[in-house]
């Protein structure tokens, strides 16, 4: 029997692994994708830190038997907004840097002949 916890945890692990792998790349585009993957992983992780609860309301409800933790949901919302804005910014910055310097590598060194 596969539990929900196992599924969520392995999804976080997979996203983080993909994110770390991509962030370590040389070109800006995979790095930006990697940052996006990492922020997805963190969002799910933060959400899971309030424990996985099914079919329970986060705020007051007369008929409710129990509640799910509303705070991580608020935190995730904040984190999503910040990560979204930063992804947009880093895309524009990488583009601008590429157009102005002709180099698309994070370390700023020009491409070797063999890379072209």
């Amino acid at each position, binding site marked *: 029997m596969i539990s929900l916890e196992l599924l969520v945890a392995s999804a976080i692990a997979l996203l983080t692994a993909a994110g770390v792998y991509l*962030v370590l790349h040389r070109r800006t585009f995979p790095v930006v994708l990697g940052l996006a993957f*990492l922020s997805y992983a963190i969002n799910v992780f933060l959400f899971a*830190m309030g424990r996985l609860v099914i079919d329970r309301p986060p705020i007051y409800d007369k008929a409710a038997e129990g509640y799910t933790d509303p705070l991580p949901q608020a935190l995730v919302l904040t984190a999503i907004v910040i990560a979204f804005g930063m992804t947009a910014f880093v895309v524009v*910055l990488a583009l601008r840097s590429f157009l102005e310097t002709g180099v698309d590598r*994070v*370390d700023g060194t020009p491409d070797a002949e063999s890379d072209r």
Partner: protein
Amino acid sequence: MNLIVSYWVVASVLLPAVMGAAILLFLRHQLVLSRFASIGSCAMLVVAACVLVNEADGGVIQSYAVGNWRAPFGIVLVLDRLSAMMLLVTAVLALIVMVYAISTGTDRKGWHFHPLFQFQLLGLNGAFLTGDLFNLFVFFEVLLIASYGLMLHGQGAERLKAGVRYVIINLVGSTLFLVGVGLLYGVTGTLNMADLAVRVAAAPPGDHGLIAASALLLTTVFALKAALAPLHFWLPGAYAATTGTVAALFAIMTKVGAYSIIRTNTLIFGDAAGDLAHVAAPWILPAALVTTVIGFVGLFAARGLRDLAAWAVVGSMGTLLCAVSVFTVEAMGPALFYILHSTLAGAALFLVVDLIAKRRAEHGDAITVAPRFRQIELLSGLFFLAAIATVGLPPLSGFVGKLLVLDGVRASPQAVWIWAVILTTTVLAVLAFARAGSTIFWKSSAIEGEITLRSLRGKRGGVAAAAALLLTLAGLTVLAGPVTAYTAAAARQLFEPAGYIDAVLGPRSGGRR
């Protein structure tokens, strides 16, 4: 909290927020008015910080519940000696840097300098005042986002390249910050720092592993901001590539990392946390020693004066964190004094270097022999003083600071290492600065002719701003007695977290237990 004090506390966060937005919306095309608004805001922040330091020196920690939501449910702003001191040094630095930016015309080199500057101050002041861990993350983001804009201000190929690296490394840092915060919330169920202190101290041994992991993750993030080896690689490139004005303001940015390390490791993971007390300390000390060595050896690798100033920042952060990592009252007081000194000295060095580079035309800041330039006598004097302050020679406050640090760490078992590293690196730094100074001023003065410039902005204002920073350092030296008394009291406050906890959660919580 006293009503008047609470106004000043809220004003330190709200004023730059409102000013930044107002300048952005209404004064976008009016440079003169936005300059007035910006400088007015900086001056008001200095006044507010002075009032708050005076208030905090009474010894009572005060907390302000935002929106009147009681802690631990709402977010609190907490005023203690440390946060008041950090507010004051930020405000003084910001005012002087703003004067410099206006008189040299840095703010005309691109759009939105003034709003970004105000948002930067909002993030800094918020980070120093907040008593909530997630709120600290949000203020970190605010100050980082503003710093991205400021760092890229004026643009140019080199700056964009360095900017991409700076932004990406900080985004990865923010991700780690969230992991640390999430873990801590998952285990303890709170994010209020005072409440965290209580719950971490009472945590069952089964949770200790997770809490230690989160403590180390948070310390890693703060170490990244504080440029602690091996996470210092981003700093020299970023600081050397941006404008001198912005680099001078960024002298406070690394101290935000140091502040956060001090705050979390004394309050949340402090002495009362049992097994978890100062869990990161054994990692910070060796890293700090290595940072000191790398920073001051890096001085010799500098090809330009900007690189020199940037490596000096790395070295001084190492020295500072050596004192912090001992985590005793005796060493923390000197460490706090050294924070004040190294912020102002680092900024002064960046401003003087910028003044020199502006006057050397195409030679810029390169450490090469070139003809004489305008105001060379005056600037060589200023460079000499800034170098003395940075290296830590008498008579300026760097000497006092290093002496106090050496004295403060005496009781530590690792004192021998700290003494050896600090004393050796000081000699290295003297050599490096002497080499750079003699090339640029001494050897250059033997060459015929003078570099002529078509126009030079801020001939007086810029020099006055740099001199003002050095005068502040002189003031710090003359008033070292009262200031060290204050920092020692601040250190005692940090190592008695019960006062902080009572102030935030109410006296009935009975402190830690």
